[in-house]
């Protein structure tokens, strides 16, 4: 299985990418570990996580094709 991870705002800048695919991650906590391995700078920033456009507040199981977004605090307007 594979999930797509999107990086926004300052996180896109510090990781140098807007998007990366991760294979064989079963849960958000698995994914967090993989992201921290690939992009250790990310852990220094505050961000919220969404799965398929819905913000999540706890760990959850991921499914093939899910779109996960790492979102720093919003700044619209």
């Amino acid at each position, binding site marked *: 299985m594979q999930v797509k991870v*999107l990086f*926004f*705002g*300052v996180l*896109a*800048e510090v990781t140098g990418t807007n998007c990366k695919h991760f294979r064989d991650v079963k849960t958000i906590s698995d994914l967090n570990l993989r992201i921290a391995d690939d992009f250790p700078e990310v852990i220094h920033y505050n961000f919220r996580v*969404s799965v398929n*456009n819905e913000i999540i507040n706890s760990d959850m199981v991921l499914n093939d094709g899910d779109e996960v*977004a790492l*979102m*720093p*605090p*919003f*700044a*619209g*307007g």
Partner: protein
Amino acid sequence: MIDLNGNQVICMVKNYLTNGPITNKTISHLLGKMSEQTDSGGHSIFLGQVRADEINLKKVKAIEYSAYEMMVKAEADKIRELILSDFTDVTSIDIVHSVGIVRAGEISLLVLVSAGHRHQAITACSKAVELIKEKLPVWKKEIFDDDSHEWKQNLQDQTGS
């Protein structure tokens, strides 16, 4: 989208977002639609403008906005539904937000609320602006006059735009 006369075309506001500043032509187009709404007795409009803040002796010359477009659509739909359900006198809501570069003095957010009477038009417009700042997944990078930049976030208690 720019037409052959160099004007922004309103139809290119897609899913609440437009590239670059919100132009006078876009604003005029939306204001022009008001005359068709003969059931409305009041319209309230909010225009958010990029401010040339001075920070550590550097002046903001522009903001570069980025957005999670699919989620902007979902969240803006929810905001419209919430306003229409909480303010029963409201007849329509328009929301346009910029992505990309918007220079100081240019407009980056437009909210237009129409209602049967003025009180709900004004109150609902204010509520919609607060929800947009809280809920829309949009990020802004302030670009200074020396071309350095800084990421900015909205503060909940901030009273300015």
